[in-house]
């Protein structure tokens, strides 16, 4: 089924110059870029090596990209429903098509309609006319790209997709014209990923467990937001000693209308949830601020993607109960099922795939001209650009340190492959774990059971996430943003 989507998008983008709704006469995309774009939107990543207003017709944007934004998000929710039913102990995990249609038509479509209507009312364009041509006050000609932006934006924000209508995403005044659209769009990022946790609680009938997980995820999100805010409230480092007033915030890559704190808050929300839309340029964030989006994508669980965020933390839950079980010398259990060797092996395989793609890819591209020849910034920051691109692909995020010249054949192919593998491995393996757990006879809970709906479990889970994350990614963080920050002091 996924393969069908992939072919579908390829065909549309390939034929866009012959299809309708192309008022500005956009031509065909280059082969590897087409592969990358198809992989990107099929895998709910929305990494963009093209610039929407430059390369794509309205038809391609709506019927290829926006369509995938709906269905890739619907697929994520359906996958979580299957996982939850397996863990509830159902032998049948449900009909994928039925779940997918429910998620698309009963959750995403109504939400998107409300959000799009709100955004239209707040001033976002929604037109099928081609670019406007203006003669400016100083008699220059300005061509202003526009389009049916509002409809596209709503599902882009709600479905943790993040691919923008315009190249610079929600920094663009047509995607995000004022303070209030910024608030609405930022809330839309978090809404469905947060709701997914409660959905899991409802299906499994364990709302208290869901509440504990929700709080753990919230703690991770708020911590990163606080740190990002703190570090961004510093003047752009390069201007030290120059005759520039200290605005008390780094304004490079930011829009004034959203207010000073909007950039770092959105940057954390969008990367913790696998959304990937941006309202400031992440490449231009202060180095320690830029580390927070990276951490968000490395852990990928502070609500995570629509549906798949909970699937990610499920892996950490398995590790958490395993560690806790080992500490008291008892076979670990999760939701009344024994967690044994097979489940642990699968969980670790799924967890290890993520750093393998990120660190392996970054190492390869940092050592060769494939990556080193495409950088926009010198030194450690250049390494951060490569690291960010692979983190974003592997976390199905789609944001970028966009200075990177990433529309090259090696980048398109490498990140395209990573996005596809990193989408489907972390869905298939956890479902296999759930299937394996479901096939076991439930163990009755007794006084020795480690309960997963207590604050103690929350601490164990938080510990598993942070410890595993730190062990895997701290060395790379030191080489990139931390080295750059210390160097600029």
């Amino acid at each position, binding site marked *: 089924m996924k393969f*069908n*989507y992939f072919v579908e998008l390829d065909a549309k983008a390939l034929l866009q110059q012959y299809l309708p709704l192309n008022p500005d006469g956009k031509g065909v995309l280059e082969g590897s870029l087409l592969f990358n774009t198809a992989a990107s939107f099929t895998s709910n990543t929305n990494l963009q090596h093209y610039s929407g207003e*430059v390369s794509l017709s309205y038809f391609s944007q*709506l*019927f290829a990209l926006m369509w995938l934004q709906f*269905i890739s998000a619907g697929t994520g929710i359906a996958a979580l429903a299957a996982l939850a039913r397996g863990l509830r102990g159902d032998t049948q995990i449900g009909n994928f098509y039925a779940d997918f*249609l429910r998620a*698309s*038509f009963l959750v995403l*479509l109504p939400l998107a309609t409300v959000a*799009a*209507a709100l955004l*239209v*009312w707040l001033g*976002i*364009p*929604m*037109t099928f006319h081609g670019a*406007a041509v*203006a*003669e*400016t*006050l*100083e008699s*220059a000609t*300005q*061509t*202003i790209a*526009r389009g*049916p932006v509002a409809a596209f934006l709503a*599902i882009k924000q709600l479905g943790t997709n993040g691919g923008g209508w*315009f*190249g*610079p995403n929600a920094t663009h*005044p*047509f995607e995000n*014209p004022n*303070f209030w659209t910024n608030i609405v769009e930022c809330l839309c990022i978090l809404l469905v990923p947060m709701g997914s946790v409660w959905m899991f609680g409802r299906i499994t009938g364990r709302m208290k467990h869901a509440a504990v997980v929700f709080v753990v995820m919230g703690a991770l999100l708020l911590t990163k937001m606080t740190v990002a805010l703190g570090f961004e409230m510093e003047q*752009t480092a*390069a201007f030290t000693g*120059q*005759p*520039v*007033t200290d605005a008390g915030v*780094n304004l*490079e*890559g930011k829009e004034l*209308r959203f*207010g000073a*704190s909007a950039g770092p808050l959105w940057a954390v929300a969008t990367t913790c949830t696998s959304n990937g839309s941006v309202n*400031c*340029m992440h*490449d*231009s964030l202060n*180095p320690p601020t830029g580390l927070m989006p990276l951490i968000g994508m490395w852990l990928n669980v502070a609500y995570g993607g629509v549906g798949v965020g909970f699937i990610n933390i499920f892996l950490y839950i398995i590790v958490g109960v395993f560690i806790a079980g080992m500490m008291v010398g008892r076979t670990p259990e999760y939701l009344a099922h024994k967690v044994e060797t097979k489940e642990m092996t699968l969980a670790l395989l799924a967890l290890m795939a993520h750093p393998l793609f990120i660190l392996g890819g970054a190492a390869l591209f940092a050592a060769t001209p494939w990556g080193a020849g495409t950088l926009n*910034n010198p030194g450690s920051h250049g390494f951060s650009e490569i690291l960010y691109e692979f983190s974003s692909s592997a976390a199905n995020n789609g944001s970028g*340190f*966009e200075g990177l010249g990433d529309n090259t054949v090696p980048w398109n192919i490498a990140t395209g492959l990573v996005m596809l593998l990193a989408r489907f491995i972390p869905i298939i393996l956890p479902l296999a774990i759930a299937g394996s757990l479901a096939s076991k006879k439930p163990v009755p809970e007794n006084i020795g059971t480690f309960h997963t709906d207590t604050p103690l479990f929350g601490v164990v889970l938080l510990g598993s996430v942070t410890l595993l994350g730190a062990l895997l990614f701290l060395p790379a963080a030191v080489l990139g943003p931390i080295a*750059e920050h210390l160097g*600029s002091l």
Partner: protein
Amino acid sequence: MQHVITSVRLVVLTMLVCCAGYTAVIWGLAYAVTPWTAEGSLITDASGRVVGSARIAQEFTQARYFWPRPSAVGYNAAATGGSNLSPTNPKLVERLQPLLEAHGANAERPLPADLATASGSGLDPHITLAAARYQAPRVATARGLSEQELMQWLERRAETPGGLLGSGKLIHVLNTNLALDRGEVH
């Protein structure tokens, strides 16, 4: 085979509903409720010619106009973007020098930070009130206006996006320049 048929039916159904139907509803709503912003908030002059969009910055270089923030894409509204320079990148200092010169900035009269930094889209339509006040002497001289009156007028024009939640007063560059051309300050 059954799976393929089901998939194809799903594809057709979701396209009809999520792409065609949904887009049509939002499009209809936009033209019914907010036709001006739906088209991109275009501003026309007395003869009906489009002079720009109220959302989008355009380039100003003449002394008689307020200037917007620098743009990494030369205010090209058909291929937008930021500089993507790291805050530690020495290129920022190189880029700063012509800006300092154009605005006549020096240690006694430092340049407001928003006029030294490029926005994310390259099309930020606003500058801070401080940045407008900073440019007021130049604009007043070029137009033969009283500097004090221009300053007071700017103060009255300033918007505060987000009110108390926002972070201070902003000036919309294009609207302000249009108002100046209309002779709103004498």
